[in-house]
């Protein structure tokens, strides 16, 4: 019975190790943010898979099914953690809230856009897309480079049409 509770705690332990290794990897070992995320995720995954080495006495079909459940939980938790980090880096609403947080008396629309505006957003995103090779610049014009993010874009548009019945929030 106690082993039943241990199995439930494994994905939580995996997430804890994921976060710990990611933070340490970034802060102490000075890994780039994305590399630290992969490092943390890999370390946590070892925690999830380790019981497969030790609990061989347990009915294997049930144990494999529970481990599969834990793998799904862990992948989902890793995805959520990655997006938590990503929100801090790229999300507009977080940045806008941050500006309002630092100006408790409030800000006019013009005051907000003097600190954070569309031009900044486009410049920052273009820089990221060019750095990752998704966009290339030639003769002061932009072209699609590696097609990965463009494929993701098309998939998201299809999902928008399926779930929301429209391609854009402005339709």
């Amino acid at each position, binding site marked *: 019975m106690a082993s039943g509770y241990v199995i439930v705690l494994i994905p939580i332990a995996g997430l804890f190790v994921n976060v710990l290794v990611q933070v340490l990897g970034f802060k102490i070992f000075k890994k780039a943010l994305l590399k630290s995320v992969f490092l943390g995720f890999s370390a946590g995954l070892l925690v999830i898979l380790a019981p497969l080495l030790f609990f061989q006495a347990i009915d294997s079909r049930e144990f494999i099914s529970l481990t599969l459940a834990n793998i*799904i939980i862990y992948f989902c938790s890793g995805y959520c953690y990655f997006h938590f980090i990503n929100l801090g880096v790229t999300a*507009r*609403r977080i940045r806008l809230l941050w500006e309002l947080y630092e100006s408790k008396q409030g800000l006019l*629309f013009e005051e907000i856009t003097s600190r954070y505006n569309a031009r900044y957003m486009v410049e920052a995103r273009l820089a990221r897309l060019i750095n990752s090779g998704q966009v290339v610049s030639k003769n002061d014009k*932009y072209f699609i480079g590696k097609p990965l993010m463009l494929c993701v874009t098309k998939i998201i548009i299809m999902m928008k049409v399926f*779930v929301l019945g429209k391609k854009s929030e402005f339709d």
Partner: protein
Amino acid sequence: MKVLFIGLGLFFIAFLVHMVVWRIKIPKLQTNALLRIFSTTLTVAFLVLFFFGVFAAGSFFALRGFNEYMHIALMFIFLMLTYIITYSALEVDSPSLVILNTIAKTKDNGLDKNTLFTLMTDNLLVKPRLDDLIRDGFAYLNADKYVITKKGSLFVSIFILYRKLLGINKKGG
């Protein structure tokens, strides 16, 4: 097999309910609605599973202990969070993806930066997000000023603290 089958099955049922509701009318507060649908599905399912445990102890759906309830809940909650996070990418147009789509449409002609700046303005990229913050209770309008609420302060301070923990001083966005 129980945890895997019931956990995935419950998520699938909640997703179907969500699709049916969305076909009838898309709610104004979409994330709130998703949370309600998923949490109601889990609650109702656990009541049903409890009754199976009492009246049909030998059946597949009779859970053997509290640990199985916990395991199913954990799986369902993380699947739910994964879906809601992914859904937020559907709800709003990501500027990066709009940039990519706009460049792709020009094919071999390419796109110059000034065209992007003309298309992507503050009214398109900033104003709707401020409206979202007000709609979700993270900020409010006091005369013409946008002011953060307590809920907004609590929410953003998690991200600020995390970035301080990592030693990142630069604001994102």
